[in-house]
């Protein structure tokens, strides 16, 4: 029941925020010179350089490496400084932050973009933080945790006891590394995305898609006979209905990770859009008097986003655990998945 409530909650929050950017882009046409829609899309999108801030005409930007492969041309590697302000280098140029070849050849863009740089940074942070936590355990053994170890221990224990054990059951241990990694990866990157100058990594559909596909692959590779029996011969369904049920169940297999992908992407992106929209209002109204109001709202949204950051990490992890649980469960507790069974009240139908 609690899980169902959460799922509903995040769906509602998704629709509520998704409606916001439409209004601001409509406003954008009214304002001259300043294009809030463009500004917002630029902020939430990826780019080949890391633009920190601008003072008048001075742009403070970190130029990141561009790596591209073109068939017949080979690998090109250079700094994105060469492409700044529409310049062409090595037959490549940027069109709306998209790397294209002048001669129209297909470009495989492996550039270390702002998101990739942020990804590497977050990977380093994750490794540093959790090896430090692990060192705490190595040092103190079975004693009480201290410092950074005691901060993360309750969260790790929560993921283990409340997410993995309850959703997956006795086989939870195999999936703990993935669940913990995905939880902290999403959480840390959500938080890094909220920092000034941070990249919108978890609000990028490529990232959420990759995570969702990994979840799908783990689910499929750990699925047992019951899982497939549930799809191709759903228990309690008359034979005549199977031609309808099988496609529905098969679609369900792919809809689950798809929902994971869209939920995380939309929540985080929407949060960024709303925050930026409130800031953009100051420039749209061209009135400093609006600032306190928009800042108050922006601050409110920011705190909400801090909550959403961990909430979305939790939801992604929980749903991943539930999908895995659905794939590995034995016959008897066959009806937990998705339907909102909360573990305490096992299975109905059959």
């Amino acid at each position, binding site marked *: 029941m609690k899980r169902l409530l959460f799922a509903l909650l995040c769906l509602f929050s998704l629709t509520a925020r998704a409606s916001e950017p439409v209004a601001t882009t409509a406003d954008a046409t009214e304002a001259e010179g300043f294009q809030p829609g463009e500004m917002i*899309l630029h902020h*939430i*999108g*990826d*780019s080949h350089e890391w633009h920190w801030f601008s003072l008048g005409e001075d742009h403070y930007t970190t130029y990141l490496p561009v*790596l591209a492969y073109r068939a017949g041309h080979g690998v090109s590697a250079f700094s994105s400084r060469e492409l700044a302000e529409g310049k062409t280098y090595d037959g490549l140029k940027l069109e*709306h*932050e*998209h790397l294209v070849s002048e001669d129209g050849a297909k470009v*495989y*863009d*492996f*550039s*270390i*973009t702002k*998101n*990739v740089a942020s*990804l*590497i940074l977050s*990977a380093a942070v*994750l*490794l540093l933080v*959790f*090896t430090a*936590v*692990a060192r705490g*355990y*190595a040092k103190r*053994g*079975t004693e009480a945790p201290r410092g950074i170890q005691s901060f993360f*221990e309750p969260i*790790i*224990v929560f993921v*283990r006891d409340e997410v993995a054990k309850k959703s997956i059951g006795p086989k939870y*241990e195999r999936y*703990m*590394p*993935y669940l*913990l*990694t995905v939880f902290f*990866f999403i959480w840390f990157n959500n938080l890094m995305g909220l920092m000034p100058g941070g990249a919108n990594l978890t609000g*990028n*559909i*490529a*990232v959420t*898609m*990759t*995570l969702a596909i*990994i979840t799908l692959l783990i689910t499929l590779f750990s699925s047992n006979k019951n899982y497939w029996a549930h799809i191709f011969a759903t228990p309690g369904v008359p034979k005549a209905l199977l031609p309808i049920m099988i496609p529905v169940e098969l679609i369900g297999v792919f809809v689950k990770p798809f929902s994971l992908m869209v939920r995380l992407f939309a929540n985080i*992106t929407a949060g960024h859009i709303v925050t930026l929209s409130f800031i953009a209002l100051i420039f749209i109204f061209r009135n400093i008097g609006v600032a306190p109001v928009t800042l108050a709202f922006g601050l409110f949204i920011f705190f909400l986003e801090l909550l959403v950051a961990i909430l979305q990490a939790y939801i992604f992890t929980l749903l991943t655990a539930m999908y895995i649980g659905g794939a590995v469960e034995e016959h008897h507790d066959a009806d937990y998945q998705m339907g909102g069974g909360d573990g305490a009240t096992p299975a109905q139908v059959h």
Partner: protein
Amino acid sequence: MNIVTPDFGLIFWQVVIFLIVLLLLRSFAWKPILSSLKERESSIEGALRMADQAKLEMQQLQAGNEKLLAEARMERDRILKEATAMSTQLVELAKTRATEEGSRMIAQAREAIQNEKNAALAEVKNTAAQLSIDIAERILRRELTDQPAQQQLVDSYLKEVKLN
């Protein structure tokens, strides 16, 4: 870059970096962390169980002690009772023996007294007979001479005789 179009390069890097992070964290963070957590939990559980067991043992020990104490008390009571019984028996025995001895001694004494008395009486009788014979002899001797004097003599002799 459109926000809903996944970018190929980013997918590539995401897969590579995420998998590296996953593998590194799995072996350098999650495994040691989870095994330590498990170890700690099991050690706490073990300690709790041991405490429970110790408590139980303590209770058993206490119960055993009480039982022992009760047994000892019973033993003491029994010994005391036996001792009392024996002492009263001894006293009784001593009393009866003393009484027997006393009565035996009294009887002996009585017998001795009786014997003495008989002996004394016999002696008195002998003496009296002897005396009577002596008197009679003297009377007989005096009679031959003087009548009044004879009487006088008898009186004086009778005075001499002191029957003790």
